[in-house]
């Protein structure tokens, strides 16, 4: 990984995720910092990334690196956790039953992925599905149920739905731009995760060593010996 990517690109990208993910447009613009639950999820995700090899902390902070380089590595890790916290806060509904259910769903899914010990590409794919599904739930399904209805029939159906669910599902109406911003934020977050320095796997073939970064754990070729 180049110094520019480590010192500039990744922290700026993750901080942009933190900022864009905070913008909530309703009757007024509000900047919402990550919730406590989001921070917990961010730390869990960091553990998952390290365990899967999607993030190699020793390539960001190590005794052999200079103090300045270690500081750069620390900013990458901290900004990554903050961006993850913001991404999870963003896809979690704001109130009521959906908030509780989605929070539980996210926690269980992440812990399950952590227990399964997948490799880098599987973790990223799994995360894409988790964030994509919760994004759709919040910004498409719940927004449609909670937003202002176009016609009388739609309004009547909304009132009926609110009555059946005792108002526990309805969310605060938001401006459509919030959804687009959230989408861009999540895409940037996934790009940032894909750019993180992964675990470096060194293999030796007949005395010559080959370095491969972010490779899957299991290799079909039995001649290759893997050193981690």
């Amino acid at each position, binding site marked *: 990984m180049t110094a520019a990517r480590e010192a*500039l690109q990744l922290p700026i990208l993750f901080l942009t995720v933190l900022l864009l993910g*905070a913008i909530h447009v309703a009757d007024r613009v509000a900047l919402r910092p990550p919730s406590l639950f989001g921070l917990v999820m961010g730390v869990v995700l960091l553990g998952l990334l390290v365990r899967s090899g999607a993030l190699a902390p020793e390539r960001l902070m190590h005794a052999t690196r200079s103090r300045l380089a270690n500081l750069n590595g620390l900013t990458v890790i901290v900004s990554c956790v903050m961006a993850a916290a913001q991404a999870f806060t963003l896809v979690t509904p704001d109130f009521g039953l959906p908030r509780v259910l989605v929070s539980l769903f996210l926690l269980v899914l992440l812990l399950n992925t952590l227990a399964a010990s997948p490799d880098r590409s599987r973790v990223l794919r799994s995360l894409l599905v988790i964030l994509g599904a919760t994004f759709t739930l919040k910004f498409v399904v719940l927004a449609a149920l909670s937003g202002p209805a176009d016609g009388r029939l739609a309004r009547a159906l909304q009132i009926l739905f609110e009555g059946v669910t005792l108002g526990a599902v309805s969310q605060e109406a938001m401006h459509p731009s919030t959804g687009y911003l959230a989408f861009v934020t999540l895409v940037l977050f996934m790009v940032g995760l894909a750019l993180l320095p992964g675990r470096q796997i060194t293999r030796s073939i007949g005395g010559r060593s080959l370095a491969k970064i972010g490779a899957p754990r299991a290799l079909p070729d039995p001649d290759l010996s893997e050193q981690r």
Partner: protein
Amino acid sequence: MSSNDANTSGVYRSGRQSSLMREPLTRLLGLAATAGYGVLIAWLFAHQPQSLTEVTGGLSATVGAYRIDQQAFDDGLRLFREDQFEAAVSAFERADAAKRDARTQFYIAYAYYRRGWSRFYEDDAWFTKGLETVNRAIALAPNGRIVVDDPELKMHTADELKAELEAGLRTDLADFNPFRVFGARK
């Protein structure tokens, strides 16, 4: 090794040296940029600006470079004295677009108070806006103290104005006193 190879090797070495020299600079710049960006985000979270004007105004106020539009303020003051309170609020808001000047915010709150006051009742909507604005003015003022030496005003401090607005929003026995119709607007 041919001279061509030696030249190529020399170019490679000097390029590598230059890259090695540039790396600490890149790292230092990156650290500074990240710290600056992080501070800006923390500031945005703390101040919750509503527009780009508020962002730029707030940042310039942080370094002491914020100035209100004096012409718009004078217009606002003239309209305020002519009892055209809504127009006055509009002019004051134009004068202090970033909402960073305590004195202008005090006048806006005062305009809301006078707009909401009547002999028979106080308009809660205007008084609520007034209370929000006077609280903002107090938060902006050094040590929360605002004193305006304007002979046209009957309340010269933000504390008096705040107490009056809070009293107007409260429902108590005094609201049913028939003699309140003889009360004077401050």
